[in-house]
C-alpha cells in the first residue's frame, strides 16, 4: 500500500512530460490539440486526487506511511513519508492547484497554446508534493529547486515587460537562499553522517551538546534560507513583484501554496534539532514573525495595485504563522498549522477573485475597480472577511488560537501586534470592497467580457470551504493536533 506514495510524485511528472510531448507537433489541428491538453491536465490532477483519497484513511487515522525509493536502506537512500501533517498540506495544495488549473483553462488560453506552460505547471505540482513527502534533506533541496525553476518560468508566462524583471529578481534571491540551504545541508551531513531526517535528528542532538556554535550556524543558515523563501521581513523583497506580475492562477498558487511549502520545511527542520534547542531559539523566530506582520501590514496600506496589496497582505499573514511557530507552545503551533491551511484557501481565492475583477474593470487600480459579477464580489467579501479574522470564518479561529497561545506563553506583546495588524488589514481590504459600492459612471459601455464558469466556480468553492471550516473548525483543529504529534510536538 505504501507504494502509492511514489505515485504521488511520479504522476505529475508523467503528465508534465506527456503535456510537453503534445505541445510539439503543429500539424494536428489546433482545437483538438487544446482539448487533448485540457483533458490530459485535468485527468492528471484527477488521478492525483484519487491517490490522495486512497491513502486518506491511513494518514488521517494517525499512522505513518513510509516508502524507500530504490530499495536502499533509509540511512543512505531517499525515503518518502506521509503523515497527518504532510497529508493535510498535500491535500490543500492539490485542491488549490486543481482549482487554479480550472481558472487557467479559459483565462490563459493564448499562453498555453504556444508554450509548455502546462508542462511547467505540473512540474511545479510535482515539486510541491515532493517537498511535502521527502524525509531526506538533500532531496528536499532538489524538489525545492524543481519547484523554483518551474515557478521562474511560469512567472514570465504573462509576457509582460515587468514579468522578466520580477522573475529575474526572484531567481537571484532564491538561488542565493538555496545556496545557503545547501551549505546547511552540507554541515548537517558532515556532523551527522546521514541525510535522512530521523537519523540526522539523533546526530543533531549529540551535536547540540558538543559544539553549540556549529548548531547556531546551521540554525541561522536554515532560518535565513527558508526565510527568503517564506519572505520574512528583511528578506521579503522579491515577493511583491513576483506575486503581482505573475498571471492570476500562478500568483494564486505562489502565495497560497509555495509560501506554505517553505513554512512546512521550516517546521520540519527546526523541530529536527530537538525540542530543547528549539525552545532556546524560538523567541527569535517569534520576534521576526511579529516584525513581518507589522511591516507587511504597513506596506500593504499604501499599495495602489490590488495584486500588490494582496501580495503584501500575504507577507503579514505569513508573519502571523511564523509568530505562531516561534511561540512554540503546543497550542500556538496547532493554531499556526491551522492558519497555514486557512490562509492557503483564502489567499488563493482572493487572488482568483482579484484576477476576475481586475480583468472585468480593465484596471488594477484599487480606486477604479468595479463590481463585475455579483457572485464574485460576494465571495471576495467573504474571503477578505476571513483574512481579516471576522468570527464566523476560519481566519478568526486560527488567529484567535495563535493570540491565545501567545498570551499564555507571556508573549502578550505579539498578540497585540497581530490584532492591531488585523485592524489595519480590515482598513485596506475594505478600501477595495468600498470601491465596489461607489457609484461610478462607466466611461464607455465597455463590454464586460463574460466570466466563464471555469473562472468563477473555483472561487465559489474556496469561499464555501472557508465558511464551512469557519463554522465547524474542529475538522481542521483535530488534523492540526494529529499533525503536531507527528512532528514530535
Amino acid at each position, binding site marked *: 500500500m505504501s507504494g502509492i506514495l511514489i505515485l504521488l510524485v511520479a504522476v505529475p511528472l*508523467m503528465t508534465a512530460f506527456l503535456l510537453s510531448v503534445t505541445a*510539439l507537433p503543429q500539424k494536428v489541428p489546433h482545437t483538438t490539440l487544446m482539448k487533448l491538453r485540457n483533458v490530459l491536465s485535468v485527468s492528471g490532477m484527477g488521478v492525483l486526487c484519487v491517490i490522495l483519497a486512497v491513502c486518506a484513511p491511513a494518514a488521517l487515522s494517525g499512522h505513518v506511511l513510509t516508502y*524507500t525509493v*530504490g*530499495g536502499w536502506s533509509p540511512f543512505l537512500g531517499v525515503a518518502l513519508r506521509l503523515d497527518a501533517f504532510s497529508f493535510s498540506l498535500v491535500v490543500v495544495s492539490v485542491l488549490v492547484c486543481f482549482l487554479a488549473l480550472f481558472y487557467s483553462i479559459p483565462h490563459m488560453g493564448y499562453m498555453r497554446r504556444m508554450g509548455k506552460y502546462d508542462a511547467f505547471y505540473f512540474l511545479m505540482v510535482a515539486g510541491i508534493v515532493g517537498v511535502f513527502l521527502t524525509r531526506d534533506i538533500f532531496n528536499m533541496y532538489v524538489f525545492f529547486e524543481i519547484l523554483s525553476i518551474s515557478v521562474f518560468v511560469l512567472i514570465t508566462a504573462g509576457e509582460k515587460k515587468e514579468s522578466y524583471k520580477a522573475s529575474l529578481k526572484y531567481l537571484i534571491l532564491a538561488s542565493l537562499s538555496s545556496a545557503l540551504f545547501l551549505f546547511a545541508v552540507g554541515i548537517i551531513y558532515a556532523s551527522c553522517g546521514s541525510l535522512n531526517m530521523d537519523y540526522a535528528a539523533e546526530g543533531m542532538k549529540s551535536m547540540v551538546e558538543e559544539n553549540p556554535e556549529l548548531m547556531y550556524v546551521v540554525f541561522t543558515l536554515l532560518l535565513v534560507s527558508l526565510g527568503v523563501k517564506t519572505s520574512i521581513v528583511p528578506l521579503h523583497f522579491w515577493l511583491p513583484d513576483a506575486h503581482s506580475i505573475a498571471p492570476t492562477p500562478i500568483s494564486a498558487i505562489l502565495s497560497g501554496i509555495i509560501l506554505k511549502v517553505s513554512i512546512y520545511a521550516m517546521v520540519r527542520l527546526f523541530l529536527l534539532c530537538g525540542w530543547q534547542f528549539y525552545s532556546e531559539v524560538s523567541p527569535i523566530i517569534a520576534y521576526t514573525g511579529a516584525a513581518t506582520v507589522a511591516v507587511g501590514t504597513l506596506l500593504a496600506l499604501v499599495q495602489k495595485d490590488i495584486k500588490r496589496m494582496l501580495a503584501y497582505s500575504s507577507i503579514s499573514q505569513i508573519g502571523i504563522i511564523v509568530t505562531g511557530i516561534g511561540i512554540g507552545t503546543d497550542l500556538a503551533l496547532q493554531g499556526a498549522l491551522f492558519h497555514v491551511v486557512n490562509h492557503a484557501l483564502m489567499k488563493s481565492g482572493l487572488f482568483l477573485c482579484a484576477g476576475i475583477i481586475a480583468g472585468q474593470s480593465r484596471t488594477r487600480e484599487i480606486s477604479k475597480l468595479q463590481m463585475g459579477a455579483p457572485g464574485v464580489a460576494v465571495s471576495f467579501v467573504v474571503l477578505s472577511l476571513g483574512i481579516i479574522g471576522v468570527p464566523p470564518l476560519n481566519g478568526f479561529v486560527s488567529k484567535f488560537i495563535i493570540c491565545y497561545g501567545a498570551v499564555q506563553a507571556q508573549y502578550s506583546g505579539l498578540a497585540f501586534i497581530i490584532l492591531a495588524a488585523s485592524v489595519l488589514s480590515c482598513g485596506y481590504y475594505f478600501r477595495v470592497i468600498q470601491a465596489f459600492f461607489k457609484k461610478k459612471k462607466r466611461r464607455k459601455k465597455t463590454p464586460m467580457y463574460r466570466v466563464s464558469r471555469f473562472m468563477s466556480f473555483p472561487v465559489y468553492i474556496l469561499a464555501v470551504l472557508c465558511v464551512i471550516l469557519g463554522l465547524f473548525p474542529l475538522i481542521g483543529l483535530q488534523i492540526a493536533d494529529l499533525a503536531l504529534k507527528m512532528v514530535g510536538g
Partner: protein
Amino acid sequence: MEMSIIVRTTTRFLAPLMLLFGVYIILTGHLNPGGGFQGGVILGSVLLLFYLAFGLREGRFSENVASLIEDVSALLLVVVGLLGMLLGKAFFSTFLENSFSGIFGAGVVPVINTLIGLKVGTAFVVLFYTFFKYMRREP
C-alpha cells in the same frame, strides 16, 4: 557562413569518433566513471560542432524531432522506474541483475543511463536550436 575547409574536414573525421565516445561513456556508466548525463552532453556537443563547421541550416535532425525524443525518453525513464515497482521491488530498483559481468551485469542501470543520455543530449540540441533561432531572427 561556413568555417574553413580544414575545420570542415576534421569535423567530418572527428564527429563519428565523438559520437562513439559519447555512447561508450553512457553504456559503461555503471562500471567506470561517466554515465547518462556526461555522455548526453558529449552527444549534444557533437551536433554543435556540426553546426559551427557547416553553418546554421537545419539538417534532418530538426528541432521538433529532437524535442520529441527528449520528452519520450523522459517518459520512458519514469515508466522504467514504475516497471520496477510492478515487479514488487521498490521504485527505480535494479530488477534485471544477473550473473553476467560487464555491461549487462547491472540489469536496468544501463537502460536508465541510456535514457538519461538521450534526454540530456536532445535537450542540448534543442537549446542550441533556440539560440540559433534567436540569433538568426531579424533584429
